[in-house]
């Protein structure tokens, strides 16, 4: 398994990829921080779905609040990226070629997913650090006190934010991988993924509140934000585990059973 992860890292950790990931993290932190700080309300919403409050920004977790609030759209980005990464492996024939070197199919797909998730974990970490740095720069301009940001409690909050964001990212990555394995074509998988996670879920929840608790995209969105008004972090984690577990089993079954003809 480690050699497959290593090989995946050979592929992903190239200068261009690293520069793109770093640039994306910095860009994310700039946009998220400016947006969150400028839109913070005196008495903000209970959850991060609708933004945040000035009180939350001055709390121990205020330094990474922009990261946590802004991360909601990162999941969808990861979803799309993993669809493209994995589906292109099938349509381009590289999965077939790799199977000639590693005939254990499950080991291959899990190794590839793990390698890509390691890169995603590093990018998420970089985004959090950049967001913290950006928040330190922006806070004085918005009269936000930062005294509570550099304590053990803030470290705990940052760790919690990282954990929930990465858990959500991993869930999106698994969903993306599942779609890619089902369709084995990036355009088709992206089309279905966009349609489901974009218009379908978001339009449906406007008229059906329960959708926040049951739709995979909404559940992962709540998980990334550390819980929402509609779905607490505990229930979000539990539901996400069930959904991603089902998706992972479906993926492994398809990979192990289907002929590789492309």
């Amino acid at each position, binding site marked *: 398994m480690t*050699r497959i992860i290593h090989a995946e890292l050979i592929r992903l950790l*190239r200068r261009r990829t690293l520069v793109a990931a770093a640039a994306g993290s910095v860009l994310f932190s700039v946009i998220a921080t400016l947006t969150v700080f400028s839109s913070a309300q005196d008495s903000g919403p209970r959850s991060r779905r609708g933004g945040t409050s000035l009180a939350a920004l001055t709390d121990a977790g205020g330094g990474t609040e922009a990261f946590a609030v802004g991360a909601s759209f990162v999941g969808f980005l990861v979803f799309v990226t993993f669809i493209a990464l994995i589906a292109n492996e099938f349509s381009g024939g590289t999965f*077939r*070629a790799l199977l*000639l070197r*590693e*005939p*254990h199919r499950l080991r291959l797909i899990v190794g590839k997913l793990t390698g890509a998730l390691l890169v995603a974990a590093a990018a998420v970490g970089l985004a959090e650090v950049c967001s913290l740095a950006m928040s330190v720069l922006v806070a004085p301009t918005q009269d936000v006190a930062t005294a509570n940001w550099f304590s053990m409690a803030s470290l705990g909050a940052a760790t919690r934010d990282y954990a929930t964001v990465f858990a959500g990212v991993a869930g999106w990555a698994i969903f993306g991988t599942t779609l890619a394995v089902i369709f084995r074509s990036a355009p088709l998988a992206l089309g279905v993924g966009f349609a489901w996670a974009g218009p379908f879920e978001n339009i449906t929840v406007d008229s059906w509140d329960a959708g926040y608790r049951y739709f995979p995209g909404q559940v992962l969105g709540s998980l990334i934000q550390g819980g929402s008004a509609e779905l607490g972090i505990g229930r979000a984690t539990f539901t996400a585990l069930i959904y991603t577990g089902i998706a992972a089993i479906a993926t492994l079954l398809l990979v192990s059973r289907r002929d590789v003809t*492309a």
Partner: protein
Amino acid sequence: MTNTTGSSTTTALSVTGLTKRYGTRNVVDDFDIDLPTGVVAGFVGPNGAGKTTTMAMLLGLVRPTAGEGSVLGSSIEDPAAYLDRVGALIETPAFYPALSGAENLRMFATVGRHDTSPIPALLDTVGLAGRGDDRYRNYSLGMKQRLGIAAALLGDPELLILDEPANGLDPEGVREMRTLVGDLAGTGRTVLVSSHDLSEVEQVCDWLVLIDTGRSLYQGPTSDLLGGPAHGLVVVAQRPDDHLALFDLLTARGDDIAAQDGRLVLRVNGSDVGDLAAAVNRAAFDAGIVLTELSPQRTTLEDHYLSMVHGGAR
């Protein structure tokens, strides 16, 4: 399927009753193949004959509907037991476009637990020395095919399975690929190469496997199929004006003769082709006719192939 581990080491590949059914159609139908160690086998058949599917089943990519056998002494049910000793290029070469040729090989070697140090030598072997650092997306089709061969050679495999390595190449590329496969033939490996280029197969392969509609038509030494006695003698006069005189002369001798494209072809009819050539040469000389060609005519692989696949009706 039975586990055939421990089968004779003189057999690189032995499969019986191999079948792959999609719906109601048998793409490969009760196919047998038996490949001795060390041969370079040409796998020949028309498009859609089942060559690629057969190779994919041998490589564990496609699950057989039926059949049993072994590759390098291990059951085809357990490809993991032998794939580390098999190198393959199946369908088109598949690499990561953004990586260089050398990076691609390094990645594949890492996945296969192969030594990466021979990569420069492998690139040299396939004629990509100096181009290994170029991105794969910038490679020509011929370079991609050659990189595919280099990847197949990672780990110094005992058995090479190459699926139409010259596919899509220009004539120069085809010639280069023929030379490359010929060179591989000299390394003692067992090679199974599918090809449409019958002249390539005839020149390079010492073993033949002919397939059509998923069924085996012939398998055995190339010499057994092509090495039979000459069935004709080609005679060509130096001066076109002598062509008719030569025809009359040989007809008068009682030879069974036919004119083909400015040449005369005598049917050998069981006599020794050497004796016949000597007699024809003597008769022509006595008649003052100078010959520029006097050569035995044997059935080519193309003749056999067309005869077997189309019943000679092409």
